[in-house]
């Protein structure tokens, strides 16, 4: 009776397959490609690269590259933006070993993908040769533990988009905007008399708060040899939190909705929202305000008195090479071409309406003409180019950024029931440390 019946065999095969699946499914992202052998450049044969991105019409940009590089063909697939579904898709594809060669990943999310061993260390493929072509602040945000994990693709230097007529009706001198945040608060008070808000404070999106704290000089997390060092309760952050605590308490800002929500567009068109401090990519969105042509201008954002920096970055993304790529060298070549060549940048602006170029000093031809919507202003050269030169270069992202922002936002939402932003920041710091430890990462509080 050594023979198995068909059913026994079938059953045995099934459970073996189930066991194999179980072990395969254990926990994704356990092995790193960056300790393995280098993958050499393809010799001769034609290489096909896939790029998952949420930029619109990016294939048209890739086609320009494809025409000039007969041995490489880049195919673009559209994914939803970041945490709206794109990352979820990339993470699942990585876990399944079916990720594309390149993925669009925001600067702040790079460390999260490093944590799941999802990215190729491009310094092993010569990325550092191109470092001088990029804004050093942004390059710093893709460089971790001696490696380079993405090619900066766009960013969002911050400035203030405003409606001059509404500010002037509240007493602002013609052609001026608040130079400091204190001036901004004073003008906000005057605007309340006109039944308008100066801006929103997004309780649900703490990344804006993070950018404003960065402007004030904060650097929340820092990688050190012995682990992560956190400091969210420095003066820069707490002063920022205190400032907006007061602004919300005095009803100087709208907290019912955030910028670019349907309610915001309606309020901006009717004049009950006078301005918005946001990234350079906000121009395309502000242009969507009904009947707004000629009513808006752009000015530098307010500063934190004598301390801090002139501007900050809000948003920004990279083209990162995914761990499962079989052609990292070619993927790097495409990413560098797209982000630094004149035809690449111009095509990205024309087709995809991409954010601010990561190459210093490059504005991009379509953005060098005065804007009709923004009252004939050449705001890109006049406002945003200087803004990119006044950045806090110490800021670094960390492997649980999204969760940290959610923790912070959860705290901010309690503002309505009386918890101050200052308290939320302090509580969030503790919770973020717990999250690090739950992930098995070491973290300590600064000076503790």
């Amino acid at each position, binding site marked *: 009776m050594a023979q198995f019946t068909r059913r026994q065999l079938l059953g045995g095969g099934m459970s073996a397959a189930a066991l194999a699946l179980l072990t395969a499914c254990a*926990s994704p992202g356990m092995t790193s490609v960056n300790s393995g052998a280098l993958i050499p450049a393809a010799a001769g044969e034609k290489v096909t690269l896939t790029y998952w991105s949420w930029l619109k019409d990016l294939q048209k940009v890739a086609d320009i590259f494809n025409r000039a590089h007969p041995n490489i063909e880049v195919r673009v697939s559209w994914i939803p933006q970041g945490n709206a579904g794109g990352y979820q898709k990339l993470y699942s594809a990585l876990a399944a070993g079916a990720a594309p060669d390149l993925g669009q990943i925001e600067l702040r999310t790079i460390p999260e993908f490093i*944590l799941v061993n999802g990215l190729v260390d491009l310094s092993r493929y010569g990325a550092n040769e191109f470092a001088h072509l990029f804004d050093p602040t942004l390059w710093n945000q893709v460089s971790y533990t001696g490696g380079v994990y993405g090619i900066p693709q766009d960013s969002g230097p911050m400035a203030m988009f405003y409606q001059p007529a509404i500010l002037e009706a509240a007493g602002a001198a013609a052609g001026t905007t608040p130079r400091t945040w204190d001036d901004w608060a004073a003008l906000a008070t005057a605007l309340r008399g006109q039944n308008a808000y100066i801006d929103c404070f997004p309780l649900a999106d703490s990344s804006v708060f993070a950018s404003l704290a960065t402007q004030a000089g904060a650097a929340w997390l820092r990688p050190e040899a012995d682990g992560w060092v956190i400091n969210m309760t420095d003066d820069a952050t707490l002063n920022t939190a205190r400032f907006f605590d007061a602004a919300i308490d005095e009803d100087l800002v709208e907290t019912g909705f955030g910028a670019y929500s349907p309610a915001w567009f309606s309020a901006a068109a009717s004049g009950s929202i006078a301005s918005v401090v946001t990234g350079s990519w906000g121009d395309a969105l502000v242009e969507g305000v009904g009947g707004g042509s000629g009513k808006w201008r752009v000015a530098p954002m307010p500063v934190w008195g004598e301390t801090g920096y002139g501007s900050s970055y809000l948003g920004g993304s990279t083209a990162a090479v995914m761990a499962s790529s079989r052609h990292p060298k070619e993927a790097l070549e495409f990413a560098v071409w797209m982000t630094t060549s004149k035809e690449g940048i111009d095509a990205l602006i024309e087709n995809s309406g991409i954010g601010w170029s990561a190459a210093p000093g490059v504005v991009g031809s379509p953005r060098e003409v005065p804007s009709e919507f923004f009252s004939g202003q050449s705001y890109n050269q006049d406002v945003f180019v200087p803004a990119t030169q006044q950045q806090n270069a110490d800021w670094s992202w960390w492997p649980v950024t999204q969760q940290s922002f959610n923790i912070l936002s959860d705290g901010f*939402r309690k503002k309505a029931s009386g918890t101050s932003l200052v308290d939320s920041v302090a509580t969030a710091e503790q919770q973020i440390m717990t999250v690090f430890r739950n992930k098995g990462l070491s973290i300590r509080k600064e000076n503790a």
Partner: protein
Amino acid sequence: MSTVTRPEIRSSSRLPSKRTGAMARAPWILLAPFLALFILTFILPILVAVFSSFQKVTRLGLFGEQGTTSGFAWFANYSQALSDGNFIASIGRMFLFGIVQVPVMIVLATMLALLLESGAARWPGLFRAAYFLPYGVPGVIATILWSFLYIPGLSPLFDIAALVGLEPDFLGPNTVLWSIANIVTWSYTGYNMLIIVAQLKSIPVELYEAAKVDGAGPVRVALSIQLPLIKPALILTGVFSIIGTLQLFAEAQVLTTVAPSIDSQYTPNLSAYTTAFAYNDYNVAAAQAVLIALVAFALSFTFLTLSNRKSK
């Protein structure tokens, strides 16, 4: 067994025994395509999730670049999920939601069904289809449609409310849950109504005739005949709704874009989704998913026990 009868049995049962063998196999062969898919897409994922919920990844270095290990973690993921205030709050929120929304919806569905099945109803077919129609609208689309009615500055509801001196806030921290409840009720009342209508139609005509002879009015017929006899349908819709409440996802997820007060862990499923795909913590997410399933199981079981006890 006697040796005498043996050949008889053999000869008489030889063919049939072959046939019973084939007959025993037949259902399995016919079921095989279903079973294969069922095991692959249902049983196996559950096993993988339960297995995963007991695993934990530990890392060395800033990003685990000095080594990552995965090991058995006992109930560490469960305790992490249960000590997460937001996850517990989301389950509590769904309790509150269910206690209010499920009865409202079932009562509404029952009333609609009784009205449509009463003799006085005009064009019952048309109204049945009309009430059922929202169920045909996918939850995401329904939420987008309703969200435009909730946004101040866009929605005509605000202008109407202003006429009577009201200033509603459909998306505020305390009201958005009921705005979601409204969408869910709008979507599923018609569906539940249809289940109840089907049960109403199976009530024998003789009962109505007997009631008429006894002089019972429509209200008495509804209370003494229809309601007791549609109880199985009411229990079924109740259980479905309880499970549906705990699995609420799409409505909350879509409304986040217009309602800042909805956080990333607003409902238990949203919480598991965020943990898995935004925080990349599949193990804790698996623990959360198992917990949600256990709560749904416990609730349905309690509901069934309670409703059965009452009937005795």
